[in-house]
């Protein structure tokens, strides 16, 4: 090597201890961020409940939210509910026929619809259609200082923006769930009777025997928690949106993803709880094969 050739020193790669320390530091940062986000969401929820019990929103702010969240979600929930009912028939028919139990198909399908799929489907559609839109709308209002403008005019943004959306999601998700249940049941019945020639009388009688009021109640009860979670998460994401178009887009995506994860988690927890309640009152379980 000649003397005028520059010697380029490459930086020493980090050792095992340094890499481990960095990994733990990154992990710690994620955990701290997660807890900080959870704390922020909790404070936000308490403030929303505080307004809910102290002063209800005016009719002119409430009704547009009811229309947007409830009425405009009905068609998409009805349509998806119908298809879910139909596809359940398609997926389960063969197995039931092998056991010569086609007439019991309605039991499994209707029970899954009213207890699980109806509320989860309605909640998922609400999170996708309404949750992301709430996060994007409030995020844009944050970025363009409209939320600051509200505050500067002496109007509390949680009272004015969050409470009406929360009430609309909470009160109208049971209606959407009933719509999903109803259309799912109708879709499944029509498909089973028309395309698989299952006896209509036995399909309905068996469904009636096994699907009770408690099952319908369980689905509606769960939907209230889903609606509340969707509204709070979406509004919180919008309120804490990062600046710029990218921030608004991320808030909308995060609102849906987080709402969906929470819906699934709540569904499990509430499912276990409601089963416990059911079996404590009615320990005798009717057999599907009887």
């Amino acid at each position, binding site marked *: 090597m000649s003397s005028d050739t520059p010697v380029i020193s490459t930086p020493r790669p980090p050792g095992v201890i340094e890499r481990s320390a960095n990994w733990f530091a990154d992990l710690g940062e994620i955990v701290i961020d997660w807890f900080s986000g959870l704390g922020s969401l909790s404070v936000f929820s308490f403030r929303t409940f505080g307004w809910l019990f102290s002063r209800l929103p005016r009719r002119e702010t409430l009704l547009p939210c009811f229309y947007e969240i409830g009425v405009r979600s009905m068609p998409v929930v009805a349509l998806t509910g119908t298809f879910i009912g139909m596809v359940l028939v398609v997926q389960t028919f063969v197995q039931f026929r092998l056991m010569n139990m086609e007439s019991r198909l309605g039991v499994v399908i209707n029970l899954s619809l009213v207890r699980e799929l109806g509320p989860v489907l309605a909640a998922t559609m609400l999170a996708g259609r309404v949750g992301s839109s709430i996060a994007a709308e409030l995020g844009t*209002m944050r970025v*363009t200082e409209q939320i600051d403008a509200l505050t*500067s*005019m*002496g109007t*509390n943004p949680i009272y004015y923006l969050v409470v009406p959306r929360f009430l609309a999601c909470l009160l109208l998700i049971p209606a959407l769930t009933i719509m999903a249940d109803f259309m799912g049941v109708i879709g499944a019945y029509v498909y089973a009777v028309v395309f698989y020639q299952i006896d209509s009388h036995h399909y309905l009688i068996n469904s009636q025997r096994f699907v009770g009021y408690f099952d319908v109640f369980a689905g509606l009860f769960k939907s209230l928690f889903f609606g509340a979670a969707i509204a709070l998460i979406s509004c919180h994401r919008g309120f804490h949106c990062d600046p710029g178009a990218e921030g608004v887009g991320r808030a909308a995506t995060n609102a849906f993803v987080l709402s969906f994860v929470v819906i699934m988690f709540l569904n499990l927890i509430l499912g276990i709880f409601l089963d416990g309640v059911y079996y404590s009152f009615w320990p005798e379980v009717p057999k599907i094969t009887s």
Partner: protein
Amino acid sequence: MVAPVANAETPPLVRLDGLHVAFGRHVVLRDLNLDIHRGRTVAIIGESGCGKTVLLKAIIGLLRPSRGAVYFDGNNLAQLTEKELTWQRIRFGFLFQQAALFDSMTVAQNISFPLRQHTVKRPDEIRRIVLARIAEVGLPEDVLAKKPAELSGGMRKRVGLARALALEPEIILYDEPTTGLDPIMGDVINELMLSTRRHHAVTSVVVTHDMRTARKVADRVVMLYPLSRLEADEPQILYDGPPEAIDRCPDSRVTQFVRGEAGERLMEMRRRGMVVE
């Protein structure tokens, strides 16, 4: 109506007492002391990022000070309850940089919003006030039915000013009122600020980096400087005095800003390799 003249004996409407605002470790405002008297117009000038808007938001209580206090009419805003703070806030009018009009509402609904929220006036009374305000800012009645997205930048600012005036505030905060407007429209906004002061006897705080606005509307100019370029013991306010004396300020940083000369800043940027020769 003529604006009341402040004197040394009257207590200030706004008092900043050692105001310190930080976002995490990033300090934006450090130990600011400032009194703003009733009926006066104070222009806060300074280059981008020096904390002018943060100062305005601290004055109305949108941002809480990390240290120090903001007093409005003798009340420490940080110590007020939410309800008390709301009652203080409706004494303010705020014209935001991009006007911050509510997209989902028409111009009429935007202007009447504070009236509908905080008064029990009848719809016809509200309509009368909205018409008076829109005429005051020089806009035709047909804009009332339009949405903010259908308006130009200058029209939005004027609607924002009409909304800020709806509740007859005692103080109006203007955040860069002429930014993004052509010189003619900028001057229209300056004239509107002057006529607002004449007709409503309001105190005004105008945040701007437009020296024409500062000279035209203000009777006092305060210049802030970014903390990142100050020594630890230097005050953040480089100039506090009448607009006509700012050209004679001995501090070269003030005169360079007023004349719009890059000077030392450009040399510093060249030293750091931020500007290509």
